[in-house]
């Protein structure tokens, strides 16, 4: 566990005491309660839990979608603004955090919902480049399509002309085109068929190796997390109940009863 558990100042991602309440008045509830985790550079870290555990909320906080959380978050040495630090995207007068966008990108669960239905693959991939005023648009697009194993001819296709697996590859390509250091993955394969999932998981493994990326993967599927990640944390009701290495998990060394239940279901 020691060499996999990075010291806080060396970690690419360090989260301490992340706490978040959502809702107003009577419907206010604590969604995250003192979440601590750290991910080393080049590592893949999994967040496992069932629906309502708060795992996706952690990702959204790291992506800057929520701003009113408490705690300390550092990404690549830079502190991420939390409570009181600027407005969330989509609020009136919010200014986008371009620097964060260059460092962190996200891949979503639903390949059908994460691509704009009226934008071609080319437009979807060119968009982040235009926002950041980066040149060599065509070259960068070709390069990234190649990295995800899609033929260059797909540039002119619309999402409805692509299969689920192809859409997810486009989503991955779009996340990579800004060359981020950290990739947040929100259940990237749970909406895909088993055979397609295998291809996409292989792609993600390969990309991490070749591009030196760091992954924070959220999933309810222990098998997927065990395949991609070296370390994982188990979440339940907004709290991390256990953090351990995948090797320990597979060796049956999980200690928390909830973790053991999850492992038992996965092995059944």
């Amino acid at each position, binding site marked *: 566990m020691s060499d996999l558990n990075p010291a806080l100042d060396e970690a690419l991602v360090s989260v301490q005491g992340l706490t978040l309440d959502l809702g107003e008045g009577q419907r206010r509830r604590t969604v995250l309660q003192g979440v601590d985790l750290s991910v080393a550079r080049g590592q893949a870290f999994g967040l496992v839990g069932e629906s309502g555990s708060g795992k996706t909320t952690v990702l959204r906080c790291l992506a800057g979608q929520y701003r009113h959380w408490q705690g300390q978050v550092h990404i690549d040495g830079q502190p991420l603004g939390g409570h009181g630090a600027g407005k969330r995207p989509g609020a009136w007068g919010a200014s986008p955090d371009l620097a964060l966008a260059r460092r962190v990108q996200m891949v979503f669960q639903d390949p059908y919902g994460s691509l704009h239905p009226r934008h071609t693959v080319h437009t979807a991939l060119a968009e982040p480049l235009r926002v950041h005023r980066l040149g060599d648009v065509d070259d960068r697009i070709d390069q990234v399509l190649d990295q995800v194993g899609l033929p260059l001819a797909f540039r002119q296709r619309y999402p409805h002309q692509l299969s689920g697996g192809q859409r997810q590859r486009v989503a991955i390509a779009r996340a990579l085109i800004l060359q981020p250091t950290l990739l947040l993955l929100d259940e990237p394969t749970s909406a895909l068929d088993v*055979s397609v999932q*295998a291809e996409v998981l292989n792609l993600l493994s390969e990309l991490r190796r070749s591009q030196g990326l760091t992954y924070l993967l959220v999933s309810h*599927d222990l*098998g997927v997390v065990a*395949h991609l990640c070296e370390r994982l944390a188990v979440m339940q009701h907004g709290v991390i109940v256990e953090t351990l290495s995948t090797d320990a998990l*597979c060796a049956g060394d999980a200690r928390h009863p909830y973790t053991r*239940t999850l*492992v038992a279901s996965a092995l059944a």
Partner: protein
Amino acid sequence: MSAPLLQVDQLNVAYRGADGLVPVVKGVSFTLGREKLAVVGESGSGKTTVGRALLRLLPHHAHITAQSLHFDGIDLLAASAQQMSQLRGRRLSMIMQDPKYSLNPVMSVGAQIGEAVQRADALSRTACQERVEQLLARVHIREPQRVARQYPHQLSGGMGQRVMIAMMLAQKPRLLIADEPTSALDVSVRQEVLDLLDELVAEQDLSLLFITHDLNLVGHFCDRVLVMYAGRVVESLAANQLQQARHPYTQALLSAVPSLKHRRASLPVLQRDPAWSAA
């Protein structure tokens, strides 16, 4: 040995599109007795279409043909719309994936189950209410009275699915077609719903056709498994013999799932053989 409850012989379903007939189910044949039969396949395999074809719930531009499509002695293909309407829900029932979409959002749970109860027997209001609570208790819902007053959006996924099962039970069907009933549920809740289905199959003379994409799930839960690919049944085998599957597609499906027990650096990728969807 009595005749099987459901007999399907050479079922073909095709949709009339702009460029002619597009086949979706090709020559599917199977029988179902008093057992749990799984139909497993990925998206586009035609598994859901098979289920809906049995209930004649496909859109009218779908062409259904078969050499034989018999349920409990009734010819499903020749049945009139009225006969089918009598059969559906009463003898042949279906539960679907997401209770949020299958339950009427503006009616209370009790009212909806009550409707199903009334369809089976005309009962007085109090008798009906009692029956509704009985059914809710049968599906292991604690506080049936309170839940009967709730609306679908107030129920968790697992509870919603139990409500669907209760509605289905109200009319005491012989055959239940379950279309991905646990796919939208959390892993811990999944087992509870499967256990419930198991109980009901054992005690109620109910046969189950379980449609899913999850091959590993049915290995433990069902008696027999049919594997579908591109509209055809490529393999039919007993659930406890899944590991000895012979068709390359079934083997590939089994090995493509990332497993805690067998960790591999790279998952085997399915090589689609065009021979699987031909003849």
